[in-house]
């Protein structure tokens, strides 16, 4: 096998380091009261996976219902609850915290040569808030659910539905604070905790992407918090802020909600883009092309992302001039996104590409995110948006970006850093198979939905005209394949915890500081504070280090 860069230590003598962050202390309490960012990342990973599979099961129910044109599997109001809970759980309890809270938590201190995040207790608090919010969301679901859609649209949520809007709102509110604390912690850490020599432009792009996403978390989330508070007050005592009969305006809710919830999609995607920058460089053996441009494009996405929210409201009665401006601004976001895609492609050019699992997911990301991003331009164009909005085109667009983009990036990252987190390799062949299955299943599921959308099938209905059935059957069949694709990693990654090959410090021959320490790392990350004396992604430096080490040992 010459087509791989994996270099593992001699398996007959290799051992997992006896002292590491996992073996340092034992017992449940040592985990539940930990301040170690790596342990908190593991806690997050376990709880996130749990919520992902609940959200996934709900998605399965939705697809099963849509297998036939009639609403026959469940009552229509049950269907409303199912897709609402799918949205709430997947967005607030999986996608928003997914990469930042697991990989970001684990890796940012390692990547910048710090011993921990700046505020370890706040970090643990954010996990507890996440769990509290998540538990409340599950409780809500068990006691009747909520059926407003994940957007809590007023006046539906304030006046008309009689479901658990308040408890779901509270769950999202609490999870929001978890997200604020994560973002705040990252910004402070990146500003104040970098090791000697680690200047801003020597940081890995993963860190840059998280920095940009953290700005969005810190500035956006409080606004949705106040929007939820106002919905709660409107619903309980009828304060009238969103009630047209009292002079209030429901559109104000839309503004406040999307002021967070549009940047929120960049909170979801930016960390994923950070993962891609790392994998694409490692598996092409090249410095990321246009490092500075990619770094600034993350920040540009964060900044532009704050000025496009009204494109969710083109058909809701905002003024034509607002539509014009927000349409233009929306297109502007495509520029930094394209900068990233083109720079990654140029990184591939003349690189020594190998096709390990993280790289397969990365290719999946690039293709699917590009489709998702370009269809976003269709939707940002006000003329086509009027035709396409509230149809399956929206559903497909969003899932291409979030599932095809973010989830692929999440899986790429989990596979890529699995040896660092656990000290063991995942089984390569079956995981490559899983990556391919995911890609195929994904396209089967969501591509037909673009066609359904252009044909005019509205979203959020349990039944549809019979002529749409063929495409819906395609979609449901694809979802089944996709389900297998997501189940496989759970099985083989769990298996690898005990039986995987010992990974050694740096199985991928990658350049990041996190790869230069033992796997799994020590609680304090490094034996001695590292000094960053080279550029990021400097493979020549890595080669020289290896030569030095060989002569040293000899």
């Amino acid at each position, binding site marked *: 096998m010459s087509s791989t860069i994996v270099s593992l230590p001699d398996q007959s003598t290799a051992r997992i380091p006896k002292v590491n962050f996992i073996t340092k202390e034992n017992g449940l309490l040592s985990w539940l009261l930990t301040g170690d960012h790596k342990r908190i990342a593991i806690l997050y990973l376990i709880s996130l996976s749990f919520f992902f599979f609940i959200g996934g099961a709900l998605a399965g129910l939705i697809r099963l219902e849509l297998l036939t044109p009639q609403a026959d599997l469940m009552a229509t109001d049950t269907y409303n609850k199912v897709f609402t809970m799918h949205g709430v759980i997947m967005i607030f309890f999986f996608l928003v915290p997914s990469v930042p809270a697991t990989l970001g938590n684990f890796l940012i201190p390692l990547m910048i040569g710090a011993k921990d995040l700046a505020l370890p207790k706040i970090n643990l608090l954010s996990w507890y808030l996440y769990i509290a919010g998540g538990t409340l969301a599950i409780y809500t679901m068990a006691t009747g659910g909520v059926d407003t859609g994940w957007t809590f649209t007023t006046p539906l949520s304030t006046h008309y539905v009689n479901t658990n809007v308040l408890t779901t709102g509270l769950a999202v509110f609490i999870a929001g604070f978890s997200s604020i604390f994560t973002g705040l912690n990252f910004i402070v850490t990146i500003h104040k905790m970098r090791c000697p020599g680690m200047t801003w432009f020597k940081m890995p792009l993963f860190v840059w992407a998280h920095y940009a996403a953290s700005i969005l978390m810190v500035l956006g989330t409080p606004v949705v918090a106040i929007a939820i508070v106002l919905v709660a007050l409107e619903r309980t005592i009828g304060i009238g802020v969103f009630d047209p009969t009292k002079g209030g305006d429901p559109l104000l809710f839309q503004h406040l909600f999307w002021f967070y919830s549009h940047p929120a999609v960049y909170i979801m995607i930016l960390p994923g883009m950070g993962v891609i920058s790392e994998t694409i460089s490692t598996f092409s053996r090249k410095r990321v092309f246009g490092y500075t441009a990619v770094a600034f494009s993350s920040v540009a996405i964060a900044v532009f992302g704050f000025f496009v929210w009204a494109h969710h409201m083109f058909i809701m009665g905002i003024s034509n001039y607002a539509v014009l401006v927000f349409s233009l601004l929306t297109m502007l976001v495509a520029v930094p996104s394209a900068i990233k895609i083109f720079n990654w492609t140029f990184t591939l050019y003349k690189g020594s590409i190998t096709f390990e699992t993280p790289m397969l997911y990365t290719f999946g990301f690039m293709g699917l995110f590009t489709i998702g991003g370009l269809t976003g331009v269709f939707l940002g164009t006000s003329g086509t948006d009027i035709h396409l909005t509230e149809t399956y085109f929206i559903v497909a667009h969003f899932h291409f970006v979030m599932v095809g983009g973010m989830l692929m990036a999440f899986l790429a990252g989990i596979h890529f850093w699995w040896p660092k987190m656990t000290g063991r390799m995942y089984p390569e062949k079956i995981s490559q198979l899983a990556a391919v299955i995911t890609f195929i299943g994904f396209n089967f599921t969501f591509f037909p939905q673009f066609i359904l959308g252009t044909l005019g099938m509205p979203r959020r209905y349990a039944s549809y005209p019979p002529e749409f059935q063929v495409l819906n059957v395609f979609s449901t069949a694809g979802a089944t394949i996709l389900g297998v694709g997501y189940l496989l990693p759970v099985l083989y990654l769990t298996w690898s915890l005990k039986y995987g090959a010992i990974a050694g410090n740096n199985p991928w021959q990658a350049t990041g500081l996190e790869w230069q320490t033992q796997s799994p790392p020590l609680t304090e990350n490094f034996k001695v504070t590292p*000094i960053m004396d080279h550029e990021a992604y400097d493979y020549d430096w890595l080669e020289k280090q290896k030569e030095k080490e060989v002569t040293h040992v000899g």
Partner: protein
Amino acid sequence: MSDSPVILHDTSEAAGHAHGGEHPSYLRHHFESVEQQADTTNFAMWLFLLTEVMFFGGLFTAYLIYRNWYYPAFVAASHQLNIVWGTANTGVLISSSFTMAMGVWCSETKRKSGLVLCLVLTFILGLLFLGIKTIEYSEKIEKHHVPGFHYSLQSFLDPDSDEAAKAAGDKPLPLDVARHTEIYFSLYFAMTGMHALHMIIGIAILGFMIFRARAGAYTTGHYTFVENFGLYWHFVDIIWIFLFPLLYLISRHQ
């Protein structure tokens, strides 16, 4: 393990970063120095205040929009607020900010009794603010100016029946205009309520700090907590500095 990390430069240069002497007990393990620790927590506090700005920003946006739409109703409704109590409360809060700032100074210069005194004064002034706020709220409750099911338009449709409206020389408002006063009071209660909630949280933390300060904490050179709490307290103060003119003084310049 023989495969020591490649990057670790175990040189005298790196060792020079570590302090030779004993670290103070309050230095947490992941910081290099006390200065870094203080700097970091301080920065985190400023960021947290930024999120608070965004949180209140949503309410201020709502206020801005509705005040522009329903200006006459907002003017009439603001006449219902007791400007004497409001001004007094502004004075109380500014004084509490002063005592808080003195507290931070005492903590910095290691004056224990001074710190305790300042914190107790801040605590009392905070309670005084909430007390005055309670008087104001109960006036609104009596007049049925709390938005919701019991809201009454009496003071606006018939200003002669209402002392405050009469004193301000209000004219009777048409029904459709008068109804918008409810939006004003919604925002009034949401904004001052959120502000009061922040005060309550602040006072609770102050109580805890007084307890700790009496035991000798914060005057050992490690005053980051007092400093950061001071930032929070001043922030809550500043919110009120904006709320007061926006809610009480809408038409007073005319």
